[in-house]
Structures are given as structure tokens and as C-alpha cells.
């Protein structure tokens, strides 16, 4: 059946072509980066639609391009350069103000306006010194460097750099202190602070532009609201878990190996008259005696353990635009994201992946596929992580079953049995890694596989 696909020139499949229509530089078809048609860039107000991709030529004709080619190229370039000349600006009625404090890597928002602040900024208690008065603790609104930089570059935040001596007296913003910062200066000075690399900023801004709420997974200070969604799931040993800790499930699964009766020169004995289930499913079942699955302990020596310096730490929590988000009490995130520099960091090792999966919650089984008449592009997408169902009875049940399968009269099959292909393709836990190469971001989803739980026979 794969014969028709074996030749490399085989026609690309319909799913990938629908990718191709996705008007995003996620585009998989090839050379879209830098190759956009800026002449199709919407200019006027109103809601623009996807500009069609420009038709490109195969190559310039001899001598660097024909008259027509040069003409079209010039037009494309000037459209691009014109668009780049736009300056970030806002009405004085809607712009916000903040002071950048390099010493603490925070921008103190002195005037917050606009919808952005519903997902950006947190309250921080700071000691304020007033002339002639004793110190007082004030709660104030502060931005992390990525939040401040993002608002600055889109022109919604006017930021000045902290200075004790400089005061400005611009109308409408009388108490602004310090010298105004350009976007360039914000890039130069805010990146590199509070663990923010350019790569992390690029990923942050990319997701914010798509409407996601993005927060830090590890609170940089105790006053930063933490999602901490997994604590209850993994860290609170139940009676059941404590009871079972000395008899892990993987040992149960492979207990045959540990008994002397297992003959390694003849693992499967079918000839005996006493063998009860002489059929294929039982044969396959008896063949499943090799240790498998993520519950089997991963033996490591000191050197292979994940080092503290590993870049594979979950850095951002992602909330879809459709997820209700309260910045003071964020719920469990829709996705957990690691950001790495693709040039200096290869993909994660098994040890790094295991450490990531260890802190992540198990996903509920994927929802049944929605059949659509025209396309089924959603079919291979991972399931929506519905926070409310993470600790739903199904999850507990599967845990119970996995711990005490004999009590349920089952060995492998759990009640958790939606379309097995969907489960196999999404995995039980997921982490998203954004690998950034000089500004171009590749997002990959690493799922914790569960093939051993869903045999085909």
C-alpha cells in the first residue's frame, strides 16, 4: 500500500496542501520566509484578508533579471520598505506609561490603559522612599521585560528609563521620570535580563500576536501569580499510591521475567496440552514480556542525568485566546512551552524529555474526531487540554486500573479506549518545544507515547 508513496516525487497529500493554504509562515511548502509579497500588504483600515502569495519566478534571466523582472522586484521591495517605515505610535488617550528599572528588571507601570493589561503585568509590593517620610510598602503594577518590550514595540507603552534626577513635564503625563527609551534601546537593554533571551522574546511576541496569553511557568518572584497546575496531580501521594510505591505497575507487568519459571530459551510454550487459550490474541499477549513504556525506571549513571544547566525547562505557560484567563489566578495552561536556540541546542535527550514529562499532567483521552464534509484537518491535532477534566474520574480510573489491573480483571486494556490511533498519535503527556534559528521559529510537540497500553492484537 505504500508502494505509491515510495517514490520521492509522490504527490503531496491533501493535508499538507491545506497547510499550504494556511496563511501563516508556519507554512510547510518551502521557501516562504522572506518571500512574501509585500505589494499585497493591506494598507487601508478595515479588516484585511489574507494577501495571496505572490507568484514567483524560477530564476532571474541572465544578467540579473529582465526589465519586467526588475520592475516587479522593485515594486515588491518598495512596498516592503514603505511598510517598515511605519512608526509605533498611539493616541495620548490610550497610551500607557512605565518606568524601566534595570536594577530589578521590571517596568513599573505608572499609567495602565487598554485591554492588554488584562493578561499582562502583575502586582508587586515595593518599598517606596518618600522625602522626609519613613519607607512604606506600596503595591504597584509591574511588567516583566518581555511584557514591557512587547508593549513598547507595538507602540502602546511609552517607557522611560529610571533616573533619580530626571523629570519630564510632558502634558498629560506629569510624573514621568527619566529619559524616553526607543524600541531599539528596549531591545538592547531588556533582553538579557530576568532570563529573557532574544529567542524567548521572539516566541513570546509571536504567540501574543496570535492572541495567546503567555505567562512564566516558574515565577521569577513570589509575588508573580503562579499557575502551579500540576502540584496536586503528581506531588500529593494518595493512600493508594503510597500503598503501591513498593510494587510499581511495571513490575507487575513484567513479573513473569522475575520468576524462575520463565525459560529464556523458550519464552512461549504452546505445545503443552494444558495451554488454555490457543488463539492469536493470547499468543501475542504472552509475547509481551519485554519491559516497555515510560513507567519502567530509566537507569542512569551520574553523567547522563539531566544537568541543572539543561535548557529544557518549561518556560512559558500558554493559554489559548478562547480560554478564560485571569491573570491574578491563572488556571492550568493549555500548553507548556520550552524555548531553545536551535543553533546551539539539539533536540532534547530522552533524559530531558523524561524530566519534562515528570512535571506535566496526563491528558484526558482525545475527543472523538469531528467529521467534516470538506476537510478533516482537525483529525490529527492533539486534543484540547480541558483543565476541568484533568482530574476527572477517567484519569483516576485509569490510574487504578494500571495499579491494580488484576482487581479489574484486565491486564492491558484500560477503560480509556477511544480511537486508539488518536491516543497513539497524541501521547499521554505533551510538551511543546520552540526551536528558534535567528528569528525563525519551529514549534514541535513531543508526546509521551503509550504504545504498550494499546496493543493492536
Amino acid at each position, binding site marked *: 500500500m505504500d508502494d505509491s508513496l515510495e517514490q520521492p516525487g509522490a504527490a503531496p497529500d491533501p493535508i499538507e496542501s491545506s497547510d499550504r493554504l494556511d496563511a501563516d509562515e508556519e507554512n510547510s511548502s518551502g521557501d516562504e520566509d522572506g518571500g512574501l509579497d509585500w505589494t499585497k*500588504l493591506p494598507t487601508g483600515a478595515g479588516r484585511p484578508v489574507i494577501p495571496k502569495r505572490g507568484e514567483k519566478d524560477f*530564476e532571474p534571466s541572465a544578467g540579473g533579471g529582465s526589465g519586467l523582472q526588475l520592475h516587479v522586484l522593485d515594486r515588491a521591495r518598495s512596498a516592503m520598505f514603505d511598510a517598515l517605515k511605519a512608526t509605533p505610535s498611539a493616541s495620548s488617550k490610550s497610551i500607557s506609561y512605565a518606568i524601566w528599572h534595570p536594577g530589578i528588571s521590571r517596568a513599573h507601570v505608572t499609567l495602565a490603559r487598554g485591554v492588554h493589561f488584562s493578561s499582562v503585568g502583575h502586582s508587586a509590593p515595593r518599598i517606596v522612599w518618600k522625602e522626609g517620610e519613613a519607607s512604606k510598602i506600596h503595591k504597584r503594577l509591574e511588567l516583566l521585560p518581555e511584557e514591557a518590550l512587547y508593549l513598547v514595540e507595538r507602540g502602546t507603552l511609552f517607557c522611560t528609563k529610571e533616573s533619580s534626577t530626571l523629570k519630564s513635564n510632558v*502634558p498629560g503625563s506629569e510624573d514621568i521620570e527619566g529619559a524616553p527609551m526607543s524600541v531599539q534601546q528596549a531591545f538592547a537593554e531588556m533582553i538579557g535580563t530576568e532570563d529573557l533571551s532574544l529567542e524567548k522574546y521572539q516566541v513570546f511576541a509571536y504567540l501574543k500576536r496570535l*492572541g495567546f496569553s503567555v505567562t512564566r511557568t516558574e515565577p521569577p518572584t513570589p509575588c508573580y501569580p503562579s499557575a502551579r497546575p500540576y502540584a496536586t496531580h503528581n506531588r500529593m501521594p494518595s493512600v493508594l499510591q503510597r500503598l503501591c510505591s513498593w510494587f510499581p505497575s511495571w513490575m507487575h507487568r513484567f513479573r513473569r521475567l522475575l520468576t524462575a519459571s520463565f525459560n529464556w530459551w523458550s519464552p512461549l510454550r504452546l505445545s503443552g496440552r494444558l495451554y488454555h487459550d490457543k488463539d492469536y490474541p493470547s499468543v501475542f499477549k504472552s509475547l509481551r514480556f519485554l519491559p516497555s513504556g515510560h513507567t519502567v525506571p530509566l537507569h542512569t549513571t551520574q553523567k547522563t542525568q539531566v544537568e541543572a544547566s539543561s535548557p529544557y525547562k518549561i518556560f512559558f505557560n500558554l493559554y489559548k485566546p478562547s480560554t478564560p484567563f485571569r491573570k491574578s489566578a491563572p488556571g492550568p495552561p493549555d500548553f507548556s512551552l520550552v524555548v531553545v536556540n536551535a543553533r546551539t541546542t539539539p533536540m532534547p535527550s530522552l533524559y530531558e524529555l523524561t524530566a519534562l514529562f515528570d512535571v506535566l499532567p496526563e491528558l484526558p483521552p482525545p475527543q472523538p474526531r469531528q467529521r467534516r464534509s470538506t476537510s478533516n484537518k482537525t483529525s490529527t491535532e492533539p486534543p484540547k487540554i480541558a483543565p476541568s477534566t484533568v482530574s476527572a474520574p477517567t484519569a483516576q480510573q485509569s490510574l487504578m486500573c494500571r495499579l491494580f489491573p488484576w482487581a479489574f480483571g484486565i491486564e492491558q486494556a484500560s477503560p480509556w479506549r477511544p480511537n486508539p490511533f488518536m491516543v497513539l498519535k497524541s501521547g499521554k503527556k505533551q510538551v511543546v518545544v520552540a526551536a528558534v534559528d535567528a*528569528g525563525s521559529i519551529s514549534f514541535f510537540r513531543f508526546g509521551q507515547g503509550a504504545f504498550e497500553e494499546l496493543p493492536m492484537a
Partner: protein
Amino acid sequence: MDTRIRLRVSNEKAYVWDVDDITTLRSKHHICGILTGTLPHLSQQNVFLGVPLVLMPEEVVFLVETELAIIIDDPRAHSGPSAPILQKYNDERIEAINLQISLVEAREAKEAASAGRAMSEEALRKRKTREQRKELERAKAAAAADSTESHTSLFVPDSSAHTSEPSVPQPSPTPAPTTPAYTVIVPPSSSSLPWYAPQTRTHTTLASARTAGVWTYPKTLHERAKCGVFRGLWGKGYFMGGGIKFGGDYLVYPGDPLRYHSHFVASVIDSPTSNLRPMEIVAHGRLGTATKKAHLLCGWDDEKQEVSYFSIEWAGFG
């Protein structure tokens, strides 16, 4: 005057902020870089991006080595202004703002007059609220339309528009009610700031930048190989873009990527004896054939400082 491109370097990343420099780089030097900033008026999408342009490290090395660009240690170039200089700057800003305000006021007065009747302040206020409400409704309708057609729309509604949780400590100062609206510009590049002093923080050679700890690329054989291959392909007239997403180190274009498809995905091989897995040939050959590109193996010889190329295609049989 030095006409070399100014590369603003911070955290070992090189940015170009001046649009004229971006123009020169692309049109004259065939260097594309990657735009990474938010376009101010199209801030809810990722297809078209704006300044700054971020350069690949091998682009930086090439530009500096060929004396087409200089490196500026950007964090150090941003010194703080003295009080008088800032005062002067702010005075100029205020002047510009006042000019803007008076222009707006003049236009409003004219409009009011031409309407044939002078409005009371109360009436003006009411009209304004009405307009604001309408504007809000329009925005909401647009956002709603956006979310229903998100598959065809490139521009994302601002999600936060739906939820309006008040920010925790609402800062008190509001602009004086009498001040009319004006446009506040956030300066994109620092060139307009009188206290920005790049001249004193300039490195014209890689060696100088390296000594200062501002720019250390290339450090390894692999990085040298990448620089060598980049230079080699550039010398043959190609434009290069990053290729990690596409299965190699570079995408290689016969002309400006704005107008031409890439011909190759190129991968850099550090040395003539570096291991090459036959599986890589299978994968690259296969991917290239499917995307109508050839794959280019670019073998770097650090001793001879030269590149040898091999092109891979599917054989067409078997």
C-alpha cells in the same frame, strides 16, 4: 562619512534598525536577514513583520569581514542623558505636541463653525461618548467576525478585548481633562535620541569586537564552516535564508526571495572527513524531490578554506 551598515549588537545578536540600511543590505549586498519586530499597524499577525531586522551570525561575519558593516556595542552606546540635554529634548517634544494640539483644535473649531452652530461643552461631551460607544461596537463586531472566520483571517482579534478584568492597582494619574488627544510616538530607533552615542562604541573588525566580548562568532569549526559556506554561496550570486525548518542550514535562492523560489536546501558539512550517513542522502534527496528543490551538500575544508559542492537528486529509477 562612513557609509558602512551599522549593526547594533546586544547579547551577541545583531540588529539593523535603520530602514535605509535594510534597503541597502537587501538591494545592494543580497543580505536578507529576518524581520522580527511587530508592524505597528498590523500587530496581530505573524506573516508580515517589521523592524528590527535580525541577522544570522554568518551574515554578520561576512558583512564585517568584507568591510560592508561595522559592529556597534549597543547597550554601551545608550548612555543616559544629562539633565539639560533631556530638558531640551522634552521641550522640543512638548513643542511638537502643542503644535499638534493646536492644529487639531483649529480643525475642530473650523468643523464646528461650518456645522453652523456652536456646541455647548455639554453637547460636545455627549457627542464624544456617543462616538466612542459606536467605535467600541464596531470593534466588537469586527472582533466577533474575526473569531468566526479565524481560518480565513490572518488578523487575530485582541483576545483581551473580551475579558476586561481591571488591572490590579489602577494607577491614579489621568491626563488633565482639558488636554485634547494627540499622537504619542515611541521612537523606533535610537538615532533620534540626542544622547545615543554609537560613535564611541564601534568595532570595525571582528577581532576588535571579539576582544571586547561583544561578538565572538565563529568559535567552533562548525561555525567557521557555516561562515565559509555562506561566503562561498554568496560569492556565486545567491541569496540565502535560514534553512533549519526546511531540512538544512540554508535555503539558496537564485535572486531576491521576494521574487524567486529557492533552488536548493544546503547543508554544511564541517570537514571532508565528517561522517555522512547514507540515510541523510535518502532524506534530503527525497525531501528535495518532493519540494522541487535539489539538495546541496556543502563540504568545508578548513585547511584549504574552500567549499566543495555535491548536488543530490532522486535517481528516477528503483
